């Protein structure tokens, strides 16, 4: 029988190995966690996400990823990263028009294929799309909509922690949160504000999404641990500057976008091993 023969050939080609469960791709955890958060936001927090727009964003990112794969000559269409970008956009970005939703999806995935230095994309795709749309004034991010319920923060942290640990880039998140918390607590102490104020700012769902799902993106953070910690601290400082000096909202999103072009420089000064999502021979992927 033909099928049996093919199987036999494969077995013959591979050296015999003891069976071991393959490690799950951390991106699957991430997709699950983001989808769960989106469902929670829609059902419990009345996030102003229009299901139609969310669907439009997801379809756009997948289509853009497919188009980019074909045009860029990548070996396989891999929807995982695009889905992560799409779900993050659904969670954070608010736009009043379907055009905004489509533009966000195209910008996010497009930036991955176009804005590259030394084989790495420069910007976190979600961050790039959000910042461009914020600059147009046609979209906004509602950082307060997640509220500060402790339970929710805890849940997010757990989910996020899981994701980051699987992606082995917990150092960025930890360094970022430590620096940012330090700045908020220090500033409030200097101003003589009660500690409830910085704690209220830290108990914010949007901050946790940023820390666990955006800045931790292993594809856009520096390769070396020292580089990543430095990068995280810079982003935290920049975010605080935008918020407390320029008095603009979404300081962290602006700061991450502004600091991202520094990553190639940090990689040159502080080189390290390039991140790969799964075990196997390195290959170019977006």
């Amino acid at each position: 029988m033909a099928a049996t023969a093919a199987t036999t050939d494969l077995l013959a080609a591979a050296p015999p190995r003891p069976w071991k469960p393959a490690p799950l791709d951390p991106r699957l955890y991430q997709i699950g966690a983001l989808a769960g958060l989106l469902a929670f936001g829609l059902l419990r927090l009345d996030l102003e996400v229009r299901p139609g727009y969310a669907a439009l964003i997801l379809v756009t990112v997948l289509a853009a990823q497919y188009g980019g794969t074909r045009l860029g000559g990548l070996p396989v269409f891999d929807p995982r990263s695009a889905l992560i970008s799409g779900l993050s956009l659904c969670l954070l970005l608010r736009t009043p028009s379907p055009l905004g939703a489509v533009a966000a999806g195209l910008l996010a995935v497009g930036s991955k294929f176009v804005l590259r230095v030394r084989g790495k994309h420069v910007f976190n795709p979600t961050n790039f799309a959000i910042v461009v749309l914020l600059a147009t004034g046609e979209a906004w991010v509602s950082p307060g909509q997640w509220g500060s319920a402790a339970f929710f923060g805890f849940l997010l942290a757990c989910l996020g922690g899981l994701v980051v640990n699987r992606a082995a880039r917990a150092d960025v998140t930890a360094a970022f949160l430590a620096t940012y918390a330090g700045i908020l607590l220090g500033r409030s102490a200097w101003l003589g504000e009660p500690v409830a104020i910085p704690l209220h700012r830290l108990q914010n769902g949007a901050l946790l999404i940023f820390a666990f799902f955006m800045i931790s993106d292993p594809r856009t953070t520096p390769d070396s641990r020292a580089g990543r910690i430095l990068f995280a601290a810079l982003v935290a400082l920049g975010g605080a500057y935008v918020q407390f000096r320029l008095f603009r909202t979404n300081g962290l999103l602006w700061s991450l976008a502004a600091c991202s072009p520094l990553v190639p420089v940090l990689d040159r000064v502080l080189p390290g091993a390039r991140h790969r999502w799964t075990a196997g021979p390195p290959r170019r992927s977006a």
Partner: protein
Amino acid sequence: MKRTLVLTAALVALSGPRAFAFCGFYVAKADTKLFNQASQVALVRDGDRTVLTMANDFQGDPKEFALVVPVPTFIERRQIEVVDKALLDHLDAYTAPRLVEYFDEDPCRARYLEESLAVKAAPAAAGAAKRKDLGVTIEATYTVGEYDILILSAKESTGLETWLLESGYKIPAGASAVLGSYLKQQMRFFVAKVNLKEQARLGFTFLRPLQVSYESPKFMLPIRLGTVNAKGPQDLFVFALSGKGRVETTNYRTVKLPSGTEVPRFVKAEFKAFYKAMFAEQVRKEDMRAVFLEYAWDMAWCDPCAADPLSPEELKKLGAPRTGPSATPNVFVSRLHVRYDTQHFPEDLVFQETADRENFQGRYVLRHPFTGQAQCAAADAYRRDLASRQEQEAQNLARLTGWPIDEIRRKAGGPTKITESGDAPAAPWYRRVWKAIARD
């Protein structure tokens, strides 16, 4: 004895039976005020320009009135106005949650009517203070309308506190730290009190709203001073006017008030109590950690209208942005209602304009059953649905307000009896079936 009232920033009197402060510490007659301890603020944003109009319904001795508001910049004379209270009343009426009535059609024919009622929010209270020692600098003094206004800056909070106390203002314990944090952020204090001579000359028996405009990227309302010595939670209404779209808070959840719900007819007579109870219940459900959006609408129109939209002249007086030299201001209004205290609202309210121009209104629906004569198959179906609809209305009301369901059912008076002849109760189902068969 002077009593210091502060906008969004109240320095509360320490003692005395009428120790109230701004942002609603001022307690008016409970029967005429829907929300006691409430303040009203119109907040106009155009680029980095903010125009803040603070209403106050202070009815005590004008000598006891004082207002202290932290402001992000130095304020020149031309940046201060005294405006007509009617402006804010109009804004309040236009944006108020509304009750709409529908009369069921004759199920066999058709009829339609609509009417609207609206509830006004409570007006606000507003709140006052000379010399260059103690590190306090009087940067300017103005007399505007019936008010004497000082713009103060200070090197440190204890000096400012001492200065205010020595100048006759009552400062609550704990205010010093809050004053200090504003000073370190290079904020000034706008201090207003009543000039009795001017007030007598102008002939106003009440205090008109004060308006301050400034250029600053800070789009916020300072509420912390007002909570220092507050006795319980306070209500604040913010009427935010923007050329762009809906305004929301960035550091607290902004939640839409439930809307479009059908409620029993007796609510018409108790609409104010309903609104109050519903708001309290929604605050409870959100654990008192949300700002409620009660209205968001393009100022050019309304449907149904609780009051006419504000005229271009009125909007201009509130400082609304203009799209062109002669064009009608292109204004989108957001009515935000927040009940706050220090525990649940530790930091000042920070706002942002969004590109969202989708209209929203707090709207509650009464449906009057058809009570005329009706004899047709559709009327039978109508009768069957009516009882379950009215039970649903009772449950909606219980859910919105937290009122006991049995009490609601009692007040609603049970299902409306619709008769074929208009006076006899509906026949039991088996008779109706029999009749229908017999008719055939």
